């Protein structure tokens, strides 16, 4: 696993009290699985949209200085937060422990096959948002790890024409909207 794939602790708003911060670890399995496949894009997106920094890659200045440089944000910039993903999830019938943060960056990031820098900006397609799934569940936490939850997914998702900033059919695919 490369050095740039060592994520620290991310800060996010408490789903139950937006004014209070919680701490999240990035799923070690998520990082390892992508690393094993040499897949970079999801990890690049976590740096930009969860940690609010560009990944430390050679010649990343090319991305920083690009006309449409990636929108750097953290989960504190979330436009919405939902609880419960309304489907079987591990040992939960309805995925009630899963929190979904929704971000609306103008520009994201992806792997680039360039010889100069392996990342490049991507202007977000219309009616697309970034969702970040977090499990607030003690059983996922490794012994000695003092965080409030684990970030398990980051996904650009299709939004609805009626509400282009929120995931498609958000009223039925999530149990409740927290904010």
């Amino acid at each position: 696993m490369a050095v740039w794939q060592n994520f620290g602790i991310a800060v996010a708003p408490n789903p139950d009290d937006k004014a209070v911060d919680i701490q999240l670890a990035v799923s070690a399995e998520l990082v390892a699985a992508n690393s094993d496949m040499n897949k970079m894009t999801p990890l690049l997106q976590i740096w930009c949209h969860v940690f609010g920094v560009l990944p430390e890659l050679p010649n990343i200045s090319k991305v920083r200085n690009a006309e449409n440089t990636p929108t750097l944000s953290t989960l504190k910039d979330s436009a919405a937060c939902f609880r419960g993903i309304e489907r079987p999830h591990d040992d939960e019938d309805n995925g009630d422990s899963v929190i979904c943060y929704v971000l609306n960056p103008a520009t994201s990031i992806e792997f680039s096959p360039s010889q100069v820098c392996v990342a490049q900006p991507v202007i977000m397609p219309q009616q697309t948002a970034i969702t970040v799934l977090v499990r607030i569940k003690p059983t996922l936490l490794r012994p000695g790890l003092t965080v409030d939850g684990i970030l398990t997914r980051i996904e650009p998702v299709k939004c609805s024409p009626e509400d282009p900033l929120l995931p498609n059919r958000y009223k039925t695919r999530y149990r409740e909207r927290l904010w």
Partner: protein
Amino acid sequence: MANDTNSYKASAAFFHDSDCVEYVKVDAFVIYDRVDEFLTLIYDKTGIQLVGFKLKGFKNIFTKQLKPIYQLNEKQFLRLASAIEAICVTLGEQLFADDDRKRSYQAAATLAANDNVELRGFDLVERIAA
């Protein structure tokens, strides 16, 4: 920096933390389009070309439907086209009543079959039981 040794190797992976199996052909910005509680289709950034799929609640699907049939050991592989077919059987009439939903499952099954997408038995038996 990108070379053959470090290039993306498209393969299916089971993510225990999020209880899903995902297959994506490309290492690029993609768009996830939820079909239902079991299936999400994954498109390229134009939103037009299908480049992958995600099967959700996979622990439940595997434990209840696939494991009894396939009796997988760590040396065997599970064809994901078969997993998609198993979901379709479970959905039954619900699927046939919804053309869009049915087409989505067909598209995912075709992609899985054409790309010969498989999961290692070890990944399932050991990690789902964990």
